[in-house]
Every structure is written in structure tokens, then in C-alpha cells.
């Protein structure tokens, strides 16, 4: 069945679940199924990627990039648009974003050329950018991508920073893994800056 194969192409959906979903769709009203498939077609037609930052958008430039209330001197670099949503939900950041579209991983065939990097280098030189915050996964691939970007950004007059790494809030020390705890000790911070945060 063609529909089963299509469902099967989705992430996290195996053969059995695909079959279950297809059978479920069979049992629904014709209009409902049409509305369903229309929604998907529209998704691809109407949603594009922001020319500036690479985030999803229904216009050429996304809401964040075109907003006058955002701080245009800081750009936060993330792997994908889910990270943008996650950081937006913290309500602690009012700068701009840059979505790379992944991280460097030669084993998966992803090199720097496959990521939205050239555009970031252009933005770094646009005169208004003062700081670039690297907010990538704390995996080896994320680290490698950080290092690559850092090297590429060095010639420009922007500060490059990275998000803090350490013990998660609400965690007990004895259950924290050694690497994280070790890093938290090495990169300790003045007590004042730990209490002057808005929650």
C-alpha cells in the first residue's frame, strides 16, 4: 500500500505504526482525509526559509529578523528550528538567530558546505553584529562545529561566545556525571552573577 510506505518515511514511524496509521485513515470520513492531505501540500507551498537566518517563515524575512524590538547586535547560532523555539520559550533572549540546519558530521555525509555557514559569515560583517553566541549540542559533533565556526569568525571584529555548560538546575551533585561536574568546577562563576537572574 502506497500510504503505508509514505508514513514509513517519517522519522520515528516503523512499518507496524505506518500500517496502523494507514488503516486508521481508511476508517475516516473522505473530507477529513482530504483536509489532512491539503494541510501537508499547503505546508510546503506557503512555508519557506528566512533569507536572513534560515528559520522557517511565511515571508522572505521572518518575524524575528524583521522585528524592531529585537537586539540586532547579537546573533545566536543554533542547529535547527526546534532550538529556536526552545530558546524563545525561555523568554531570556531578545537577540537574533541563525539556523545552521545541522552539525558537521562526515560519517553522515554532512560537511560545512551543507550547512548555512556562508550566510553567517556575511552577517558577521554587516556592521551591526557585535556578538555571536554559539548554542549547539554539547556532543562531539556540536563541539567540532563550534570550533569550525570559531576559526572562521576569528578574522571579523565580533565577540564569539558559547552557552554555559554545567550542572542542570534542580539536579543533585552526586548524580551529575563527572565530565559535567568537572567542567562546572573549572568554569565556576562569581556568586553574584548566579543570583541576579530573572526566573
Amino acid at each position, binding site marked *: 500500500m502506497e500510504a503505508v510506505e509514505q508514513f514509513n518515511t517519517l522519522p520515528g514511524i516503523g512499518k507496524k505504526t505506518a500500517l496502523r496509521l494507514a488503516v486508521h485513515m481508511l476508517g475516516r470520513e473522505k473530507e477529513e482525509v482530504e483536509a489532512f492531505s491539503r494541510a501537508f501540500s499547503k505546508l510546503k507551498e506557503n512555508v519557506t526559509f528566512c533569507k536572513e537566518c534560515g528559520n522557517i517563515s511565511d515571508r522572505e524575512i521572518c518575524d524575528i529578523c524583521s522585528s524592531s524590538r529585537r537586539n540586532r547586535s547579537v546573533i545566536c547560532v543554533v542547529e535547527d528550528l526546534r532550538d529556536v523555539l526552545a530558546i524563545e520559550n525561555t523568554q531570556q533572549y531578545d537577540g537574533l538567530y541563525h539556523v545552521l540546519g545541522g552539525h*558537521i558530521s*562526515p*560519517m553522515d*555525509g554532512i560537511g560545512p558546505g551543507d550547512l548555512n555557514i556562508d550566510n553567517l559569515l556575511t552577517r558577521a560583517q554587516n556592521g551591526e553584529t557585535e556578538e555571536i553566541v554559539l548554542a549547539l549540542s554539547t556532543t*562531539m559533533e556540536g563541539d567540532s562545529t563550534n*570550533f569550525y565556526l570559531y576559526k572562521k569568525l576569528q578574522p571579523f571584529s565580533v565577540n564569539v561566545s558559547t552557552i554555559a555548560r554545567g550542572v542542570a538546575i534542580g539536579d543533585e551533585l552526586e548524580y551529575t556525571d563527572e565530565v559535567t561536574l568537572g567542567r562546572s568546577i573549572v568554569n565556576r562563576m562569581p556568586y553574584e552573577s548566579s543570583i541576579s537572574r530573572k526566573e
Partner: protein
Amino acid sequence: MHLKNLHLVHFKNRDQADLEFVDGINCFVGNNGVGKTNLLDSIYYLAFCKSFFNPIDSQNIQYDEGFFVIEGTFDRNEKDEKIYCGFKKGDKKQFKRNKKNYDRFSDHIGFLPLVMVSPADTELVYDGSEVRRKFVDGVISQFNSSYLDNLLKYNKAVSQRNALLKKMGEEQRWDASSVEVWNMQLLQYGQPIYEARREFLDEFIPIFQQYYNLIGNESEEVSLVYKSRLHEASFEDLLQQSEPKDARAQYTTVGVHKDDLKFEIKGHPLKKFGSQGQQKSFLIALKLAQFDFMKMKKGIKPLLLLDDIFDKLDKNRVKALMSLVSEHHFGQVFVTDANKTRIQELFEDIDTALRIFEVQPNETKLITEK
């Protein structure tokens, strides 16, 4: 630390077994193929969550059966630890300590230190450098917890760098800044590995030589030599220098993943110049040095499993080994041998608790107790 009892169901060729051991010497005697080594292997399972011989759990189930169970009670720091390992075909392996499931087997490995001396150790002499690195890595990771983590990350970085080299080779280009990224990762994780190996071997080699002199012949000078390109130059320089070579080969040609441990006798390779007896003494000395090292680092005497080690050793060597046993240098020891009389004679005068079990196809009988 010692193993008090062992209970098996459908493990390899043992249908059932219920054995009680002494905190001393426990021997399994019997003909070839009756399953003496399988009994040792089941003890190994309880310490390492897998077989010493066959890493595929389903192949360790008795023929025509659907599951196996290994259960043992250890006395560790005067506390009973009940270890359970069960595997059912098609299911995940269950591993429990005092009825509590382990989430990760790696949390258990190292809890019950154990050293196995087996005829299969000859692979350390004959096989490629990988098995020798594995031996060294295995010993170090038992007491240095960040070592294994560095090793896993280092190996991943090598795979990533190799994938990059391969891709660039196919596309006939060289992207220096991409290579640099992975060089940095290799340095970050490889350097501590190199240092840990060097430190370990500095400490380990004298212990090894002492053992060889004891069970081997003092006039035979033996050594272990840590081979690494990192002795010559800094890892950073080596990586840079080997870039043209790596580009041609399309893989990473230098690093701690190419290290080796050379076995030498009188300055020559043991593989080519050592007799079978010398090789056997060499390997036993290597494993006993591992025993001493773990005892020193962990403060617990590991269990010692000696599988069929009396063949090919002359009387003097066996005697020297037995004197170590009688001096209570070791903790609990498990021994297998096909020759019942030899074992009975060997341990006759030794002043330690002793049990000899005769292993038969369908049952295991206690025949001597002291």
C-alpha cells in the same frame, strides 16, 4: 572477596548445577568436553556480564533450550551480593544485583574484579595489535573511569575524520579547516589516553617481570615495550606531518589507535623466538601482573580463574606458581584440569581451604574437601 555459591540453568552444556565453594582453591577436574571451562565462564559472566569466549548470548544457551540463568552469591567486603544473569531468546539480557536491575552493564563491570588465565590468551601473542590494546585498555579502565570515556570519544573522532578523508579523497579536494576540527578532537581525547597508557605501563612492567622471573627462568630476560609514535613527537605535530599520507590513504594513519604492546624475550619478538612453554609463562605472568595491579588499585583481591594452565609448564614452574598460592598471595582461585591425579598431588600439601569437584556430563560432584 569470594564467590560462595553458583547456580546454573541451561548454561552452555550444563543442564543444572548447584555448587558451594570455599574461600580458597576450587578445582574442576574431568575429561575433555565435559564442561569444566563452561563453569569458569559462568563465573566470568557474573563479573563482566558476558562470556569470555562467545559474546553472542543466545549461543551460550544449552542446545535445544530457550533460556539460561546464572546466579551467584559473592562475599564482598563482608557483605553478601547476589548477582543474577538471565537471558531468554528474543529478550533483553537481565542483569541484577540484589534483585535490582542494572540500567547499564558498564555500571557493574569492575564491581567484582576478576582475572581469567586461559589457553585462549595466546591470541595476545599471535593476533594483531588490537587485542593487545584491548588488554591494556581493559586494565586501565577498571581503575580510571574517565579513560573509557576518552577512548570511546577518541574512536568516534577517528571514524569522523576517516569519513572526511574518504569523502575528500573521492572528491579530489583538501579542506584544511575541516580536518583541523577533527585534529582538535583527536588531540583532546588522544593525549590523555597516551599519558594514561604510559603511566600504567611504567608501573605494570616491573610487576610483570617479577612474575616472569618467578614462574619462568630468571636467565630469560623478558620485556613489554610500549610502541607509540607519540614517543617521537607531539601528537599535534604528528597529525600535521601525516596529513599528506592520510590524504593518500584516506584514513588516519597516526594516533593512539595505532599503538602496540610488543612482547619480547631476550630482545626478540616472543611470537617468533619464544617456545610454547615460554609463551605460556609469559602470558601467565602478564595475567598475574594484572591481578596484582588490580589488587593494588582496588584494594580487593580479584577472583583468579586458571583454565588449564598446567599443560606445557614444567614441574619447576608449576611448583613456583603453587608456592604463590600457598603463601596466600591470591584470594579465591578456580582451577580446571583434565588430570585428576595431578591436581590431587599438587594441592596435597598446601595449607589452604580446598575443594575438588569432578565434572561429569550430567552432574558435578564434590570429591575432595580440606
